[in-house]
């Protein structure tokens, strides 16, 4: 009995390890996702084990590749979908959301008068 319960727990944990987490974020800094922010994004993404992809609708790219991230051409106001898959998917998506939306890559936001 005890052995079987152990097996069940193992299986459950095995299943819980693979998590998929998705979230839409908006590019808020004026200059958009140019190379420096893209590098920051890739740096944060690479701290996690999960596979991370980013979609702009037209393009779906590897969130850990600087070349692919630079291809998104996400201007200010663009909405991107971040998708992480792996044991730390939730934390990865949270960290990336914080970088993009809360910290806006430590860059200026648009002038409110203009937008």
């Amino acid at each position, binding site marked *: 009995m005890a052995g079987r319960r152990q097996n069940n727990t193992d299986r459950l944990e095995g299943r819980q390890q693979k998590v998929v987490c998705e979230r839409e974020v908006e590019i808020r800094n*004026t*200059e*958009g*996702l*140019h*190379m*420096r922010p893209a*590098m920051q994004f890739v740096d944060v993404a690479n701290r996690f084990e999960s596979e991370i992809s980013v979609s702009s609708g037209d393009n779906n790219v590897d969130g850990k*590749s*600087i*070349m*692919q991230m*630079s*291809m*998104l*051409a*996400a*201007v*200010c106001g663009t909405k991107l979908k971040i998708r992480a898959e792996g044991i730390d998917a939730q934390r990865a998506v949270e960290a990336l959301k914080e970088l993009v939306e809360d910290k806006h890559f430590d860059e200026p936001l648009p002038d409110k008068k203009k937008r």
Partner: protein
Amino acid sequence: MKLADFVCFEATIPELKSDYRDGVIAELVTALDKAGKLGRGNREDVIKAVVKREKEASTGMGKGVALPHVKHHAVKDVVAAVGQSSMGIDFVALDKQPVYSVILLISPADSPDRHLQAMESIFKHLQKEKFRKFLRQSQNAEQIEDLLREADENPSL
């Protein structure tokens, strides 16, 4: 945006003379200047600005390519120049490997969206191994222009 919309083919350097980052940047900026793309008297300042930007974070992003760039009032729209080196350049690249293809991009100070579109256009092609290989195999400015124009017309290249 297409490559041919902003790459200045007159400024192509099929065999760069320098084998170090700042020398290559100076060569490409000078080529753009000679092609009349930088207005009067901006050459030195543009070189300084590109080198300064490069020191903040390398644009040698691996796989033998580098994309030095800066925003500068010398240009009214994005303009780029392509340089090739067969011997390889020490560009302080992220993967610490030599760089063989350099695309210098100068963008106006006030249109971040155009800058991003040009970047997209460049990386769309540069991330493809076949394109990088063909670029490295190009022998002269004409072949580089043909390759870029073909890449514009044929996205599968």
